[in-house]
């Protein structure tokens, strides 16, 4: 059984559970939905900017295309949410790789990437707004306990996952952005490597 309750399923359940007469609930839910969409568009657009700054025009175009499709309403929230998380992870992996191989950025790339970083970092503030909208929906008396629980779990899960993806990307950038003025790129070895490398363990 799939324990994780999907974002879209929870939204649908909640909207069905809230009778049309209770206009406040529908308003809160619409607010929550719009807030999430705005975050996803901003995060995807920031990720596209980051790809562009790093010099990967194709990935930049693809990611920007997803952001535009979402904005037009061509993509559902769940597809957009997954795309955002994977796109964040992809650009994060690329940044970590640039740091690992010791490739710095040019002055222009640094400025462009710093601007993309700020855009992505801004979404962490937007998540707080989305959570506030969600909290108001959950306080409504017209939604039953089970739906509230489902919605609560879904919101917490979605927000936590999206927040985590964004945070990891931001952390990777912060580490790499210091690369230009210092000796970076060294990470602790994995347990697996130490286990399989007796020469290192014997030092």
């Amino acid at each position, binding site marked *: 059984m799939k324990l994780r309750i999907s974002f879209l399923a929870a939204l649908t359940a909640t909207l069905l559970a809230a009778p049309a007469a209770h206009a406040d609930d529908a308003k809160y839910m619409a607010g929550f939905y719009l807030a999430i969409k705005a975050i996803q568009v901003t995060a995807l657009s920031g990720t596209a900017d980051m790809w562009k700054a790093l010099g990967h*025009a194709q990935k930049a175009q693809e990611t920007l295309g997803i952001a535009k*499709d979402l904005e037009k309403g061509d993509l559902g929230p769940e597809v957009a949410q997954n795309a955002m998380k994977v796109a964040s992870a*992809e650009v994060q992996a690329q940044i970590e790789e640039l740091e690992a191989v010791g*490739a710095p950025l040019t002055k222009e790339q640094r400025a462009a990437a710093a601007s993309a970083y700020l855009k992505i970092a801004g979404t962490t503030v937007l998540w707080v707004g989305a959570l506030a909208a969600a909290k108001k929906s959950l306080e409504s008396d017209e939604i039953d306990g089970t739906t509230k629980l489902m919605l609560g779990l879904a919101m917490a899960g979605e927000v936590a996952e999206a927040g985590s993806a964004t945070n990891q990307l931001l952390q990777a950038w912060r580490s790499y952005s210091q690369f*230009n003025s210092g000796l970076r790129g*060294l990470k*602790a070895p994995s347990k697996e*490597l130490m286990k*399989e490398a007796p020469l290192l363990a014997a*030092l």
Partner: protein
Amino acid sequence: MMKRIVASVLLSSLAGGAYAQEDGSQLEVQYCGVGYLGQAKDRDTTYRVLAPNVLSDKGRPEVGGRLKKLSQDANSGVKFVESSNDALSYVISAAKYEVQEYRNPLPPNNQMYNVIYTLTIQTVLFNKDSKEIKGVYPWTYQFNDAMPKKPADKDIAAKFKSFFDDPPALKEGEEPDPQLFMVQWREAIANFRPVANAKTIAVAPVRFSEAAQKSLTKSASKDSVEGLGLEITSTFETELSKKLGLPIVPGGGASGAAGEAGPQYIASIPDCLNSGEFALPAPSYRFFLTVDDIASASLIRKESRKVVGANGVISEEPITRTENGYGARYVLNVVAPDESDSSEWGGTRIITDHKLRFVAAKRFTGERQLNEFDQYRKLSLAFTSDLASAFMSRDEKWIKNQLSSAMGKTKPSAIRKEWIEIFEKRMGLARSKKR
């Protein structure tokens, strides 16, 4: 005699400007501007990249004035007076650069150049009359810059000059770029807290065991290994001075041979003196570090990763992930020097053969050849920084992680106890968690 120097200060934020002294006292010195290590005749060769501008007769007072203003803004513990025998100068001791070629890992995979700039400045306290050095506090700035075209000499000189430019004006809510030289310099000078009659430290030239030397010369020349020894030594000096807050005695602080003058510090400080030969104090403690052994290993994993394509479609693609590990064992000795002691160590060893290991990894997609020598260089420089921090944090977990298997059954707690005895009780350095 150097005026009473403050013992401790309360720092405020960089943006907040100067910080207050606990006891309100100040170090009163004459500001002697910017100088450079060595004699005037060496300026154009040793400091080729700075000679045309920063160290020229026109450029020096401009840069010196900017550094003076920044010092006054950031550190109210230092007061510049019109005239005093006690003086302070910012002495540039290294201005180097290295150009590395590399292939851009991202499309279009074009040829790129990474220019690594290194600038070391020593804050030097001295007596103008007696030409005695009271304290040398080194600080190093490093900056990597990538570019598609190989830089010409004039580009390099212009970049070095630009480091000393005032940071651009900030709009409301903007933070200064932490990578800027002047931003980092300001932070360093704000933390400059010389203590009267401070213990002095020296680092003996870092040595390599035969085994380590043999391994390193597989991927580098003997000259490069020798150069690496000098680089680790000077980085260790800088890190120790920064983290312990103590002045260094440059050049290992070795005493002169019988009948010869002791070690000297030769610097050109044109705004106060001409070329000067200064007498150095004897170090209170001398650190010895030996690179005892090195090793590397590689782990290749076949994995898959998710990628997002156009229209938000997510697919999985197979990838090869490589993890390269680089490690070294270092042997640490610390000696309380005694001029009458003619043994190998020249004094009493207060830390004897602490063997520590340091391992780091690089992880990337695909398989790549990394220059091993360069990785050991980064590893060793990072180790000196970590080690100096660990002397202050005395963190048992850090010691446990870095304790070499060659230490047998020695417990981390025993090492920690020794470090407390030495750094806290003998040197009077309170524990600090700041890394």
